[in-house]
Each structure stands twice: as C-alpha cells, then as structure tokens.
C-alpha cells in the first residue's frame, strides 16, 4: 500500500515538474520541441538508469556504498567522450564514450574473473582500480589541455544540455527505448537479488547460479551506465541516494525498491536539473546540485547507522 501511494505521488510530482521544466520562461514551440523536450527525455532516462543500476549494484555487491560509477565503467566512458571532444568530434562524443565504457567493462570483467569464478569482492576491487587509473588519465589530459578544461569539467560534473542534431536525436531515442527495455528486463532478477542478499552460499543452495547472474547483471548495467555517461557525463549521488531513500520508506525488498528507484531517480534528476538551470543566471553543473542535496543526506544516513 505504502509503495503504491509513493509510486502515485512520485508520478504526479514528476508530471508537474516536467510541465514546469518544459514551459518555464518565455519560449515558443520550436524551443519546446527541439531543445527542452530532448533535454527532458535525456534527464529522465539518465535519472532512471542511474538510480535503477545503483539499487541493483548495492544488492549485487552487498555494499551500501555501491553506485553505478563504482565499477569503473563511467571513467572509461568519460575518457572516451573527452578524447572525442578534444579532437573536435563533438557529434561522436557519445559514440566514443560508449566505446570507452565497453572497453573498460571488458577489462574489469577479465580482472574479476578467476578460475571461472566471478567473486563480488574481486569485481568491486577490479572496478575501483580500473576506474582510478582512468581517472588519473583524465586528470593528466586536463593538465595538458588546459584550454579544454570546460569540456572535461562538463563531462566530470555532468552536462545534460547536450545539443542534438536531428539524426543524433533519433539515434538517442532508439538507444533510450532499448535502455528502458533492458531496465525492465533487469527487474526480472529482482527476486533473485533478494535471495542473493542472504549470501552466495545460501543463494546457491536454492538453485541460483550466482556467478552467472552476477556476470549478466554486470554486463547489462555497464551498458546502461555507458550510454548515460556518454550523453550526460558523470552525475554523482543519484545512483547512491535514491535507492537508499526508497529503502528507508518501503523496506529492503528489491522487488519494491527497484521500480520506485527508477521513478524516483528520474524525478529527482529532473528537479535537480531544473534547479541547475534556473537557480542562478549562470547554468550550474547538475552534478554539483545532486551532490549538494546528496551529501547532507549521506551524512545523515551515516549518523543514523551509528545510532
């Protein structure tokens, strides 16, 4: 009952926010259709994916600190985008970003594999190490190409203001629809994830192929994260806090948490991006807004745990 109420509430909030998002200020049909609507769709898709993947990772890795970026894929995607941007190939930034995500995913996969096992600690450590290494490469690029610091900062702090061309937009829409289907597909594993949170041994004993499931989820989630980072850069905290908020309200069952996280993530990011655009005359990086709201929450979460 509680989660249905929450679902409806979020839906209404999302529609109201979406309306303001599309129509704030003096605009005409051209801007609404060609600038704001693409941005709204990108924002919603990004928020949903980040929060959904975050909730899956937290369960799968059995770690409350897990988030979509923890397994290094985002750094690979960011590096790919930045390289394309520096070469002046702005339209190819998402493609390069996605390629970077794929390569990183393969690398982490290989590192995490050991004698056919796909251990969660190993996966976590491999992801973090690869991610750190790639971040260092980005820092180096930032130092060497100071004149392009804005591009790199935009990628590292999140930039939902991607300017689409008509063809590119069509391509994005297809990707987004596929992405949504994958998100639905992942929901089928929610029950299994609930069981798996009891430990690999227990899950194995009731017939779940733990390593296989972990591999599948890792690949699907990495692909989704890759798409999102390729278009919007790295937007922190959405994937971390939204699943936690949802769990605080409806409990830990992944079957309830996952769909609510999707919706909550979309609405939260929409709100944050709205603030980023309209809070000051200068558009703020959306990653800063999510962090401003996310950090205090996180501290509160930690304090609560201690008590």
């Amino acid at each position, binding site marked *: 009952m509680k989660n249905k109420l929450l679902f409806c509430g979020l839906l209404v909030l999302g529609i109201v926010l979406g309306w303001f998002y599309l129509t704030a200020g003096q605009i005409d049909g*051209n*801007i609404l*259709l060609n600038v704001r609507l693409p941005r709204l769709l990108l924002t919603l898709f990004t928020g949903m994916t980040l929060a959904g993947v975050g909730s899956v990772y937290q369960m799968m890795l059995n770690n409350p600190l897990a988030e979509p970026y923890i397994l290094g894929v985002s750094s690979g995607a960011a590096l790919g985008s930045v390289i394309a941007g520096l070469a002046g190939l*702005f339209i190819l930034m998402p493609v390069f970003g996605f390629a970077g995500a794929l390569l990183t995913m393969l690398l982490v996969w290989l590192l995490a594999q050991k004698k056919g096992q796909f251990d969660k600690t190993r996966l976590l450590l491999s992801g973090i190490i690869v991610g750190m290494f790639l971040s260092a490469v980005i820092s180096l690029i930032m130092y060497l190409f*100071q004149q392009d610091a*804005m*591009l790199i900062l935009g990628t590292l702090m999140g930039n939902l203001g*991607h*300017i689409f061309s008509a063809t590119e937009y069509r391509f994005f829409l297809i990707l987004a629809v596929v992405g949504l289907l994958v998100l639905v597909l992942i929901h089928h594993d929610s029950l299994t994830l609930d069981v798996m949170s009891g430990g690999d041994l227990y899950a194995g004993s009731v017939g779940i192929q733990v390593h296989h499931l972990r591999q599948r989820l890792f690949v699907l989630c990495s692909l989704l994260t890759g798409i999102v980072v390729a278009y919007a850069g790295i937007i922190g905290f959405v994937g971390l806090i939204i699943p936690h908020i949802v769990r605080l309200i409806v409990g830990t069952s992944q079957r309830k948490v996952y769909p609510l996280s999707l919706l909550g993530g979309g609405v939260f990011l929409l709100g944050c991006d709205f603030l980023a655009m309209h809070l000051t005359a200068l558009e703020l990086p959306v990653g800063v807004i999510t962090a401003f709201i996310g950090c205090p929450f996180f501290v509160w979460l930690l304090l609560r745990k201690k008590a």
Partner: protein
Amino acid sequence: MKEKSKVKRTLFKSCAVLLVLMTGLCIFFSCQKKESPAKGQRYVVLSPEIAEIIAVLEGTQNIVGVTAECNWPESLKAKAKVGQFGAVNKEKIIALKPSIVFASSLEQQAIGSELSKLGINVVTVYPKSVEEMLQGILTVGDAIGEKNRATFAADSMRSELQKLSRNFQPNPRPKIYLEIYREPLMSVSDKSFVGELIELAGGDNIFLELERDYCRIKSEDVIKAAPDLIICYSKDTRAKIKSRMGWQNIPAVQNDRIYFEEDINPDWLLRAGPRCVLGVQRLQELMQYSVGK
C-alpha cells in the same frame, strides 16, 4: 724525400687557406649577430598579447624567451620556449637571465610574484578592455624604454578605432553570436574585450550581460536572440551547426552567415593586443556582407 716535403708544403698551404677562410666566416657571422640583445635587454614574455605589443614597439629582437602561445610575429617561433601560458617552467626563465619578465592574468601572477622574490623585474599587464590595452602599450613602452613610440602607437590606434567606429554605423545593428566553446556552449558578454570590439565595430553582441566575461550559455537563449551573424571558434563545422536541433530558425543559419577561424582570425578578436584593429575591420567587412543582403 723531395716528394714528402712537397706534400707537406701543399698540406701546410691548404691548412693556411682553410684557417683564413674560417676566420673570415667567424668575423662575418659575428657581424651578423649584431641583432642579438642590445643594452643588456633580455625579455621573457609569458603572454601573447604582450609579445604583440612589444612587436609594435619594435622590441622583438630583445625577446629571449616566450610561451608556446606567443605565435605573432613569426620571428617568435625561433625563440626559446619557457612552457605554456598556464604552465610555465620557472627554471627555464631564470636560465635565460631576463632583465624583464612580462606576465599577465591571474594564473601568471603567482609565478610573477615568485620571480620577483628572486630579484627579477616582473611587469604585469593584463588588459581586459580596449582602454586597458592602450594603457598596456604605455606600460610596456615605459618598461622597455620606448615611451615616445608607445605614446604614438597608442594614440594612432585609438584614433584608428574611433575612425572605424564612426564610419560604419549600420541601422539596425546586426546581432552577432560568438561561440568560443561547444561542449558546453560558451559565449562572450559585452563586458569582455571581444564583446567591446563587436559593439565598437557596429555590431550587437547578443549577450549583453553574463555572469562572467566568457561564460557558459544555453542553446535556447541563442535561438531566442536570433543572431544575424555567427562567429564560431569552437572547432564545430557549418553542417553541424546547421543540423543543431532548433537552430534552423536563426537568421544567421538560414542566410548562411556563419564564419569560422579562416574567415576571421581569432587572435585578432580574442587577444587584447594591437591587432584588434584588424579584427574590427574584418568584423565590419563581414557585417557589410550581411547588411547588403
């Protein structure tokens, strides 16, 4: 025996000829080198604007080191490089034993103050408007002992700019959007140096006020402002600008009034140096095309 002494003599002779030749060459080249720093003046220039100002004051031959960005005049290419604009190698500067180091901007001021501690004479010129640039010419002129030349240069530049501005006053003024960065979009405000040049040239920069001189902007604001002219310094291409969603209604896009680095040299506009006069002239030419249409 005789043969040997003959060979010796020939050897000796050819050695003597060689020696004379080499001495001659040495003298010749040392005469050529007279261009090198006179009066013990050795300048290290960290910013391209100041290098251009020094060139106008005909002090280029005294420059011994520059940063990689200093690319005008051509002769600077042969000078020693002391790093990049924002990442200067202090040891290289000190090794060049400069009599004056010319620095600009915030990031260079820290280096400037460190060099001052070592007893090196640092002159900072950081012009952000046309007036400050003209003032900068006087400051540099003072520092390198070319006061009269500097006053003359600044005065003639001022009157040249005034003349250009007076002689071209289109009505209505063409609206200009200058894109300096693509991802994210960035443009300039009227308060920036280049914004001032656009207004001076008779154009109307579409961003009257921004939070900063060079600032991030929104795609929809460009669409709303409907510029007549786009100057694109963001490495993007004509076809891609035309395909940006929602930009098809912009007059500049409809009339193909999009200009790039090859149409108007960015250094003439973005660099607060003496070549801005050329920038204003070129801007007016571009605007005339669009006014004529």
